[in-house]
C-alpha cells in the first residue's frame, strides 16, 4: 500500500516537472524574447520603458543565458509565488486568474461526480436488464454521448434553450451575483447554476463508463458463483450488488486517473461556448494575444491541480477497492 502511494506520488512529481517544462516552452515559443514583446505591448499602450528597466527585466529572467538557466530562474520565482505579470492586463498573473482556477476545478469535480453518479446505476441496470427497452435507450444515449463532442452539445443545448425558452443558459452565476463578494447566497447561486454545465461536460465520459461497466458486469453475471449465491437463496438485489458489481467496478478504478484530466481538458472548451467564468476563456484570450506569462501559468496550474486531483481520487479508490491495496504489495 505504501509502495502504491509512493509510486503514485513519484509519478505525480515527474508529471508536474514535465508540465512545468512544457509550460515554460509555451512561454518561450513565440518569436523574439518576451521582454521585447512586453516592451512593445507597453509602448503601444502609451507608457515608455527605459533601456535600464528592460535590461533589468532581462537580467531577472536570465534571457540570453542557456535554456535550463532561464527555466531554473523562472521556476525559482514561481516557487516563491511570483508568476510574473500579465502583459494584457498589466497586473500580476495570480490576480488576473483569481477565482477562475477554483471554479474550473469545481466544475470538473462536479462533472466527475455526475459521471460516477450516472454511470454506476445505469451500467448496472443495463447489464441486469440486458436487451430491455431501457437498455437500448441508454445504449443509444450513450452512443450520442460518445459521438457528440461536448462543445457541440453545449452549442446545441444553448440554441434550443434560446429557441424554446428565449433564455440564455450560460454562466455560473446570475447577473446580479457575478460581481458580488462571496456569501452564502452566492454559493447557493453557484450550486443552482452548476448542474447543466457539469452534465454537458460529463456526458462523453459517462457514456464510455456505462459501456465498460455493462460489459464487465455481464461477464461477471455469467460466472458460477452468481448461480451459487442464487441457489443459496440470496435475494436478487443482494446477489448482484454484493459480489458481481463489486468485481465489475474495476474500470472505475483504472479509468479514474485519466477521467479527471479529460474533464479538466473538456471544461476549457465547454466554458468558452457557455461563457463560464473559468480559466478556459482566459487561456484562449491570452494565447491569441500572445500574453505568454498568463497562458503558461494557466497551463502549469491546471496541470498541477489535475495531478493533485488525480492523486486524491487514487487515494479514495484505494480506500474503496481492496484489490488495489493488495495488488501493489
Amino acid at each position, binding site marked *: 500500500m505504501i509502495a502504491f502511494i509512493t509510486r503514485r506520488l513519484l*509519478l505525480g512529481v*515527474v*508529471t508536474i516537472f*514535465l*508540465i512545468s517544462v*512544457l*509550460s515554460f516552452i*509555451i512561454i518561450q*515559443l*513565440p*518569436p523574439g524574447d518576451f521582454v521585447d514583446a512586453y516592451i512593445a505591448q507597453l509602448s503601444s499602450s502609451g507608457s515608455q520603458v527605459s533601456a535600464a528597466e528592460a535590461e533589468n527585466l532581462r537580467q531577472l529572467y536570465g534571457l540570453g543565458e542557456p535554456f535550463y538557466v532561464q527555466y531554473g530562474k523562472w521556476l525559482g520565482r514561481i516557487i516563491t509565488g511570483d508568476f510574473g505579470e500579465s502583459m494584457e492586463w498589466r497586473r500580476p498573473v495570480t490576480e488576473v486568474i483569481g477565482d477562475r482556477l477554483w471554479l474550473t476545478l469545481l466544475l470538473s469535480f462536479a462533472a466527475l461526480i455526475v459521471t460516477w453518479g450516472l454511470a454506476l446505476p445505469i451500467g448496472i441496470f443495463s447489464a441486469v436488464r440486458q436487451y430491455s427497452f431501457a437498455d437500448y435507450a441508454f445504449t443509444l444515449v450513450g*452512443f*450520442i454521448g*460518445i*459521438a*457528440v*463532442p461536448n*462543445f*457541440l452539445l453545449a*452549442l*446545441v443545448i*444553448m*440554441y434550443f434553450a*434560446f*429557441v424554446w425558452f428565449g433564455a*440564455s443558459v450560460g454562466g455560473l452565476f446570475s447577473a446580479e451575483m457575478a460581481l458580488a463578494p462571496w456569501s452564502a447566497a452566492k454559493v447557493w447561486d453557484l450550486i443552482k447554476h452548476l448542474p447543466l454545465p457539469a452534465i454537458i461536460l460529463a456526458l462523453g465520459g459517462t457514456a464510455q463508463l456505462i459501456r465498460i461497466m455493462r460489459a464487465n458486469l455481464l461477464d461477471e453475471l455469467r460466472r458460477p458463483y452468481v448461480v451459487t449465491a442464487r441457489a443459496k437463496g440470496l435475494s436478487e438485489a443482494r446477489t448482484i450488488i454484493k459480489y458481481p458489481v463489486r468485481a465489475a467496478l474495476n474500470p472505475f478504478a483504472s479509468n479514474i*486517473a*485519466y477521467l479527471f*484530466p*479529460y474533464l*479538466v*481538458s*473538456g471544461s*476549457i*472548451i465547454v466554458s*468558452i*461556448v457557455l461563457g463560464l467564468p473559468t480559466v478556459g476563456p482566459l*487561456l*484562449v484570450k491570452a*494565447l*491569441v494575444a*500572445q500574453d505568454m506569462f498568463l*497562458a*503558461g501559468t*494557466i*497551463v502549469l496550474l*491546471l*496541470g498541477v491541480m*489535475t*495531478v493533485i486531483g*488525480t492523486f486524491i481520487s487514487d487515494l479514495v479508490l484505494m480506500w474503496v477497492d481492496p484489490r488495489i491495496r493488495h495488488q501493489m504489495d
Partner: protein
Amino acid sequence: MAQIDSEKYAVATQLQLTWWRFRRHKLAMISMVVLALFYLLAAFADFLATQDPHATDARTSYIAPQPIMLFDDDGSFRPHVYGIRGVRDMRTFKLVYTVDPNRKVYIDFFGRGYEYKLFGLFRTDIHLMTLKNPERGDGIYILGTDLLGRDLWSRLLVATRVSLTIGLVGVTISLFLGVLLGGISAVYGGIVDTLIQRTIEVIRSMPTIPLWLGLAAALPNDWSVLQVYFAITIIISLLAWTDLARVVRGKFLALKEEDFVMAAELAGASQGRIIFRHMLPSFASHIIAAVSLALPAMIISETSLSFLGLGLRPPAISWGILLQDAQNIQTLALAPWLLISAIPVVVVILAFNFLGDGLRDAADPYG
C-alpha cells in the same frame, strides 16, 4: 454442405475469418458504407461543389437553404432554383437580398464553374451542377450561405476533405509512434519498458487541450495553410499515440507466450522474421480496430482546436472553422442553418465508433 463449410472454415486465412465475422455486425457494415460515401464526397468535393467555397458576395449574405426544384410548371424535368432579388427595407432603407420566386434559373449538368484540381492533379473546371445564365448573386444554395455570402454546401464539402484527411495523417503518425514504442517496450522489456510505460502514464495524466492550445498558438502567423495543417496534425498526434502503444505492447506480450512463436524460434527464425512474418499478421486486425477508434478522437481534436480559433486558420476550411461561425447565439438565431455543419461531424464520429467496435469483435475470429 455443412461438411464443406467447416472445411472452408478450417483452411480460411486469418483475413477471411475476420471478414466473415465482421460481415455479421450489421451496424459496422452500415458504418463502413457511410464512411466510404464520406470519403467519396471528400475526393470529389470540388466537382460536387456548386459555388466557389471562398467567393464572398455581400448580396448573398445569410440566404436560407433553398431546395432544388426538379420539375417545371408544365411537369417536365427541368431542375431549377430561384434567383436572388434586392428589396428595399422600408424601415431601415437597407437593400435586403431575398429569394425571388418569380425568376427561375435553370441548372446545367457538367457545366463550367470555378477552376480546381481534381485529386490535386488534374486541372479542370467541370462541376456536377452549375447555373444557366445566372445574374449576379444567383446560385445553388442547398444549405444556405454564411455572413460573407459563401455557400455552405460547397464549404462543407471542402471542410469534409480537410477534416477527414487530417484524421488519417494524424493517425498514421500516431500509429508509427505507437507501434514503434509499444513494440520496443514489449520486445526489450526491463528498464526500457518501464521508462516507456511511465512516459505513457505521464502523458495520459496531463490535460491535453490546454497543452495543444499552448503549442498551437505558438505557430508563426506567416505560415502557409499547408504548413499549419501539418503542424496541427503533428501536435495532435504527439499526445495521441499512447493508446495504440498500449494495444501493441499488450498483444506483443500475449503472443510471446504462444506455441507458434516458440516453434518459429526453435526452427531458427530470426527475431525480425518472427515479429514481421508471424506475430504482426496475427494482431494486425487488432491494430486496425484500435486505429478506427483513434480516428474519431483525432477528428474531434482538430475540430475543437479550429473551433477555438487556434487550429487551422482561414482561408483554410475545416469542420471546426465552419462551426466557429456558429459560435454565438445571436448568429444562430439569425442563421440556424449554420449548425448543419455539426451533422457530418456527429455522423462520421459515430460511424467510426461502430466500425471500430465491429472490427474489434471481428479481430479475434476464434474468440
